[in-house]
């Protein structure tokens, strides 16, 4: 199955400027591996060496923060839209 990932500006050097990517995978963890296959080096930008997401990377599936679901194990369906959003964007009363 295939889902779409929106690539934020800070990661576009790794994606050769691409702002979207089509990915395979049944979970966010698998989606990240799929991204890494297409754009080698992207995983270490968004994940710690342990495989956990970095503190300042927020991931949304169809607009919902995955921390309200199963985190990195959140399941993905065909056609889902996944956003990688820097945590420091915005957010000041």
């Amino acid at each position, binding site marked *: 199955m295939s889902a779409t990932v929106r690539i*934020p*500006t*800070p990661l576009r050097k790794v994606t050769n400027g691409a702002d979207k990517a089509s990915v395979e995978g049944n979970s966010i963890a698998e989606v990240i591996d799929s991204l890494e296959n297409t754009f080698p080096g992207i995983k270490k930008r968004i994940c710690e060496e342990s495989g956990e997401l*970095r503190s300042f990377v*927020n991931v949304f599936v169809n607009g919902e*923060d995955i*921390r309200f679901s199963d985190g990195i194990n959140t399941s993905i369906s065909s056609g889902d839209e996944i956003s990688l959003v820097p945590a*420091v964007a*915005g957010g*000041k009363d």
Partner: protein
Amino acid sequence: MSYVLNLICRECGAEYPTQPLNVCEFCFGPLEVQYDFDQIKNKVSRKTISNGPNSMWRYSQFLPVDIENSIDIGTGFTPLIHAKNLGKQLGLDYLYIKNDSVNPTFSFKDRPVAITTSKALEFGFEVLACVSTGNLMGSVAAHGSKANLDTYVFYPQDLEVSKIFGAAVYGSKMIAIEGNYDDANRFCSELSDIYPWAFVNINMRPFYAEGSKTLGYEIVEQLGWKAPDHCVVPGASGELHTKVWKGIQEFIDCELIENSIPKMHLAQPEGCSPISSAFKSKSRQIQPVKPSTIAKSLAIGNPASGPFSIDVLNQTHGSAEIAAEDTIIDSIKLLAETEGIFTETAGGVVISSLKELVTKGKIKKDETVVAFITGNGLKTLESMGEIKENTVSCMPNISSFDRVKSNFKF
């Protein structure tokens, strides 16, 4: 002149040239402005500051904008009031209220927005945009007018009416997002990748955040060049809390004041307290929440500066307070009835938290406390419910008045 060196990542220390950029491309950490403090230290003294304008621009050497380029609608140097009446009720001899609700758009937001607008002009932007829980958008709209910039403001649709009017009046383009603040914030972050605008709290965030330091400078100067023992600061994203501390720390570093560290307490409402909750469970990782609070200006469930706010709590031995929702209105009334200051719901959260801190013995009678009141009560009128207990209607004649006078309950 400005003494900015560059931008630096608060997490990994990577450095970047000064530009409208807020995220480290290596670790996604937030970028912060770095200054040449050796130079600042040589140029600045208590006297040079005291001789400056009666506004936030008296601290221009510590800010990332040249004062000649400043967009100034009269922000800052707001009153620090010795709150003797409220202090007496709470058992505090040296309680001070920093009343930042008297800024041009009636909240502390004018400080960061003054910096951002000035900087947006320096960078050559034509559009100023923001996502807001209400106070920010009024300020962005006003400063945009003064600077002749087009403004777009994005806000959660359930906002208080007076906050919407308070931005719309300046002719800003108003976009009500069907969702909460965090939804609007995520959306605007994606929008900022497409539109080449100065998003006040996204790509301009490193500069924006610096404006709030001036609150720290001011209270120190107004207390006679010394830091208080305690600060009680409202928490939404956590950024204000970290920046008040940064301001105080910079004055210590530049030897403008003695090295004494205030306890930096954080005040969050029960219906949205992700930072206080993480701190209480001894974690630096924030678990986001879906806000449900009458303190809408504090309703950020996914606080961007949460981890840094927790660092400040740890460094300064501060407490993270959670104000019960049903105390907020009573606290607003308490401040109004004792000190003549009508604050919005966020201020109610601060006063409720202050009471808790005193009750728990964390603040002592003879210690100096500054409570930060950051927004005006007229902005959140609908939260006040119908205050009918002290109103009566009366015919315009003496006998009618004599009759209704006896109806007063107090």
